[in-house]
């Protein structure tokens, strides 16, 4: 029995959120200096999955594949183009402003770019304290005490209550954002790259903090990050996105030990090791990431996939459960029992054969 498994699966199988056919499309100006025809960017394109109560769901994928957009739309911080998001069985997308405001207390976000999300004219005491005031939870000295407690929790000196965002270092600002998001003991948090701006030691403190909140308060979290070792450490399940689509979703060990999607397998081969002697051969994917305004026909990964066939050009694979609790969108998923290494070798062999 794996001890760590037991600890992390405090999650029940009861969905807290059900995301159904969620789409977010942006209309942008066309290419070329003088061409002004508008194009549609399908940043999130028909994504469906559940987030179980108490689980940490890691979300990974290349820059620009739609992770932040997905996170923002689930919380309705941006209006989705289409789809449904059920939180405790009510469709958030149908709620009016008043109902939404109540929900905001339970659902929070830690933003990717802390500088852009903190108002430069307010002190951090005001920025975090505002959370308590808006929801009528505390004011005055009581509020100040609560804010200072939060600051301490994220490893910031409470005596900096009156400092402004620009007076902090990058990593300190990120922690202000974390303190703000966690201030109201939310039930669900979208954490968008919460630790990527942090050094390893603060990073481990924050990760330990998030794991503790999860264990003690049952916090449910969508954890967006590109640091695969961090995602592996904290997540119960992991979802992999590619160009607006969810291409793989399963329990963390499944994803890391038996990735079924060729993209996931390639992604896993690129993790840098913190030891120069362990540098390994990376599978750097061929070709550039296609533009989301002009995605390939059929499978969106086919232009870079070493396993692609004619079928992949013709037909887009849908997300299917290929094994127990292991969802993949690929016509030719890798078999179970194939270790990561074998999967990579297979990819390489196919590469040579082509």
């Amino acid at each position, binding site marked *: 029995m794996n001890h760590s498994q037991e600890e992390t699966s405090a999650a029940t199988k009861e969905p807290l959120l059900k995301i159904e056919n969620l789409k977010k499309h942006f209309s942008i100006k066309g290419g070329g*200096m003088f061409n002004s025809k508008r194009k549609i960017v399908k940043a999130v394109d028909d994504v469906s999955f559940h987030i179980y109560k108490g689980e940490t769901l890691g979300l990974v994928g290349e820059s620009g594949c739609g992770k932040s957009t997905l996170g923002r739309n689930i919380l309705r911080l941006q209006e989705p183009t289409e789809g449904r998001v059920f939180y405790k069985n009510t469709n958030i997308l149908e709620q009016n402003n008043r109902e939404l405001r109540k929900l905001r207390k339970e659902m929070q976000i830690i933003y990717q770019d802390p500088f852009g999300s903190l108002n430069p004219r307010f002190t951090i005491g005001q920025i975090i304290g505002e959370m308590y005031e808006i929801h009528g939870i505390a004011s005055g000295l009581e509020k100040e005490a609560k804010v200072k407690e939060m600051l301490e929790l994220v490893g910031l000196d409470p005596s900096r209550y009156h400092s402004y965002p620009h007076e902090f270092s990058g990593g300190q600002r990120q922690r202000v954002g974390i303190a703000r998001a966690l201030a109201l003991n939310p039930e669900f948090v979208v954490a968008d790259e919460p630790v990527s701006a942090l050094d390893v030691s603060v990073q481990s403190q924050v990760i330990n903090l998030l794991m503790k909140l999860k264990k003690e308060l049952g916090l449910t979290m969508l954890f967006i990050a590109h640091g*695969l070792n961090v995602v592996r450490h904290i997540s119960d399940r992991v979802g992999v996105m590619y160009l607006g689509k969810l291409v793989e979703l399963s329990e*963390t*060990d499944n994803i890391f030990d038996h990735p079924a999607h060729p993209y996931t397998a390639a*992604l896993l081969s*690129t993790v840098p090791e913190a030891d*120069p002697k362990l540098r390994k051969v990376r599978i750097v994917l061929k070709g550039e990431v296609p533009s989301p305004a002009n995605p390939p026909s059929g499978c969106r990964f086919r232009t870079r996939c070493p396993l692609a066939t004619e079928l992949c050009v013709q037909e887009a694979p849908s997300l299917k459960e290929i094994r127990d609790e292991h969802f993949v969108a690929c016509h030719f998923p890798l078999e179970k029992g194939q270790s990561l290494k074998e999967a990579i070798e297979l990819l390489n062999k196919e590469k040579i054969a082509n």
Partner: protein
Amino acid sequence: MDKILEVKDLVVGYKGKNGFVRAVDGVSFDINKGETICIVGESGSGKSVTSMSIMRLVEFENGKILNGEISFKGESLTTKKADEMRKIRGSKISMIFQEPLTALNPVFTIGKQISEAILFHHKIGKEEAWKEAEKLVRLVGISDPEGRLKQYPHELSGGMRQRVMIAMALASEPELLIADEPTTALDVTIEAQILELLRNLREEKKMSIMLITHDIGVAAEMANRIIIMYAGKIMEIANTLDIFEQPLHPYTKGLLESVPKMDGQRGVPLKSINGSIPSLNEIPDGCRFSPRCPFATEKCHQEAPAMETRGDRQVACWHVDYLLEHSLLDVEEEGEISIES
């Protein structure tokens, strides 16, 4: 070797209620032509302030260079006038800022911002500059550059914004590139591509790079030498392989051990250095790291160790010899250490 940058005894302060607090407190290092040095250290240790001082940008944030000397190719930067500095910034020395949104202007398109940076240094036409901008944007791995150039910063993803900033910093073909956490928002594949790009520029153009990163993996891959910084001071400087092979400073050791391993056990608390970095107005007496250091002795609490040279390495710690012979485990087992000093 040709030194391109020399920093000597740099002290940088911010005005607080009771005078200046020192965010950087006596830092000396140099960078050779074509060399990449990485500055590694916990959040708040003064990495960004050091780089902003080289660019002479601290002045815009109520900061002041209180002491020390910074010279670029033998010329002092500390005494340069504001307009002379402006010419150097973004041409001979460029900087990739830690937070893209601080550096990008929200009201102009990406294309306008990059092509302006190009036009600032090259005497070419607008259309040509726009074409150059396209090339740069492609180089940093953004697809559909033509379309992207017409977008505004808020329309890009976090990682794209970061890469746009990298493109902008490279637009002037700088001799020294200061890159403050340039790949934090990037996934591993694109990070690999950007690091490759930087390596090529180092080889082909002999560009020197001062790379600030908290990712020891990135430092391992990129750096010729690594500088370990803590609470405004340098703790250790050494060649990359040496640092990993045999860290001489307890802080370096602690940093190396708190990296989550790909084969580590999941779900269990990560190792981290006890305690946290002191705030600037509570810098402890003696060695700054002493309250958190498992090797600390009475002497450490009283007197700050000076930077000492050992072969081609430098380290500031009283007990390097002891550390060379004992692991952290010994200390934990014995509960305390006894060292004659």
